[in-house]
């Protein structure tokens, strides 16, 4: 059951990344030029560097290309101002949670450490078989 679940998940991931590779190919061959004013003239080094991201986040690229095809404004979204207040709240919350939970998990996991073979009672009859 577990193996089946992860096999299907892996298959989905492979299909997703395959689509990403396809989108990346189209992006670098053509879309890149009419995409982002700064990307249009971007160096090949830049294209290589962003390639893994294009493969991983291809739906973002595809959505933007579709908006470009429909002549919709694409810069607006990119210019959406950041909300530092929300980021600061998330940041503080993340570390308060971490400060409380991590020591508990730390203590529980260390206390529950299972004995190893070195902790087992010794076997008396076979000393001549000791590994070297």
């Amino acid at each position, binding site marked *: 059951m577990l193996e089946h679940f992860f096999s299907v998940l892996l298959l989905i991931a492979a299909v997703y990344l395959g689509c990403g590779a396809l989108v990346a190919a189209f992006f670098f061959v053509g879309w890149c030029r009419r995409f982002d004013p700064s990307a249009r003239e971007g160096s090949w080094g830049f294209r290589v560097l962003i390639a893994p991201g294009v493969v991983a986040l291809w739906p973002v690229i595809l959505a933007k290309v579709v908006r470009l095809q429909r002549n919709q404004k694409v810069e607006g979204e990119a210019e959406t101002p950041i909300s530092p207040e929300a980021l600061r709240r998330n940041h503080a919350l993340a570390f308060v949670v971490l400060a409380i939970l991590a020591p508990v998990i730390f203590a529980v996991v260390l206390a529950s450490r299972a*004995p190893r073979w*070195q902790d087992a009672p010794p076997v008396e009859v076979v000393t001549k078989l000791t590994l070297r």
Partner: protein
Amino acid sequence: MGHAYQAVGWNRQKKLYDFTLLGLVVLAVSVFGTITALRHPDTTAESFLIRFTAVTAFLLLHVILAIGPLARLDARFLPLLYNRRHLGVTMALLALVHGAFAIVQFHALGDRNPLVSVFTAYGRGYAVPFADFRAISQFPFEIFGFAALLILLVMAATSHDFWLHNLGPSVWKALHQLVYVAYALLLAHVLFGVFQSERSPVYPALLGLGFVVIVALHLLAARQESGLDRQRSTALAEGFFPVTRAGELRANEGKVVVVEGRRYALFVQDGRVFALSNVCRHQGGPVGEGRIVNGCVTCPWHGFQYKAEDGCSPPPFHETLPTYAVRLVDGTIYLSPLPLPVGTKSAGAPLLDPAPAAQGDFFIGWQSKMAPALARFARTAAIFLAVLVPAAVGAGVWFQHPVDRGRFEFGIENQFEGVLYERPIPRLRVTMADGRVVDHVLVGSGKFGPPAVIAGAQGHRVRFTGSLIVREPLRMIELNQPSTFAILDPGATPVTEAASSPLGQGRFVGELVDTKCFSGVMRPAAGKVHRGCAVRCLSGGVPPGLLVRDPHGAGVVFLLTGPGEEPLRYDVQLAGTLVEAEGALELHGDTPVLHVTHLTPK
């Protein structure tokens, strides 16, 4: 943005930064390598790589996580923030090497897809431990590391301004805040993984110290920020709020003020006070903590620039910050939080003779030179890291328990000839050059038991090509060339094996191991970190063994088989854990074999 993207927009500061980073990694690998060679000379190259990359990447993650709050608490750390993405990408690449090698070493060449095996090898570990408290520690650690690696890789892949622009700063920043989740996942990866095998108290002490430092820095920075956000003032007529005394403003230096929980940046330029949004359009940096450089308001994080009077970036850039109306009344600055129309010039408020800005405490990477005091501070930070990183990496390898031993003649193929016994454990009985008769347990290549070609050769003289695996007194042959297998006496009557020597009946407690790895193929070959590999090997047909402790603390392995001549039926997912095996112990030749009647988790 306003100019063509490049892979990296190099400048002197970035080169210095990367040179220092490279130096740290080289220093770390030198220290790790030297101590490994001196204290653990049996470590294999793969194990070295897996361990070195793990320790160094985790350490770099601590450094990365410390830079943000340090820069908030003390602006002198800002030069470390400037090129932090290179630090992050380096760390992600080290983590990728660690993950890739670990998956290949422990899960590849077996009977399952390695990526499926990573999550499922010992799936019973996912069960909720209602009855046994100790079962908590058996939870699979690999899933935490894998999830953290995915986050780090996505972050590294999007560490370019192209992504910042196209995802939008809010999404990009939120995505990169997942580093906190990655850190928590890696803590779990370490706790449930290596901490189950390594028992030196130094490791929990180091991990705890790192955790306390990181969490304390972040909580201190968060406290400082929330104090600023809580500032409140009452609006006067026409929606203007008092924000600061004019005497607190300095020429060419920003000041952050708060109205209704929102932050604004005040700058004095050419005798006038201007107000802009405090949120840089690049990564949301605190514009008000910046300076005016080359006539432009300059964000302290990465040096994005805006003109104070209209909030527009100088050409060819086209980012724009909202600007706000300000007034000066009786020595107090008042600000209206309603933004002016985008790009319109603000008249500002006249302020004659502001105090001069402090000199030498501001630097942005694209500037040609750092002020001497700041340069001294940056050098001190680099020296501190040059001591901290090798010391922590050195401690990481120094306190490891001794690695497993053995010899695997990987890539060296020899011809073997002898009498083959299929039962109870497949073995080749070889007469050595000195006349001794020595049994060699047979296994296949990768994580498999002996290939099917040996079936039916019981008691016959055979010859084949393979590779030797030795951890005395255990000797094995990896039969990796099945096509070379030949029965030399096909018509002869099979030789009957001499009666085994009984050593007695008993109950033995030890770790269920796969005998191939334990004989010298893997180091480590036992414990939680090797558990996934042991499951794969046993699942593939490698003979199981029980690793017990002799009175001197050394290890002894019994090969396990069924009560009679048949193979043992057991749950391979018990691999890497303590079990109790009951049965008759015999010596077949010189191979100790335990005929198991009962095998139970301990």
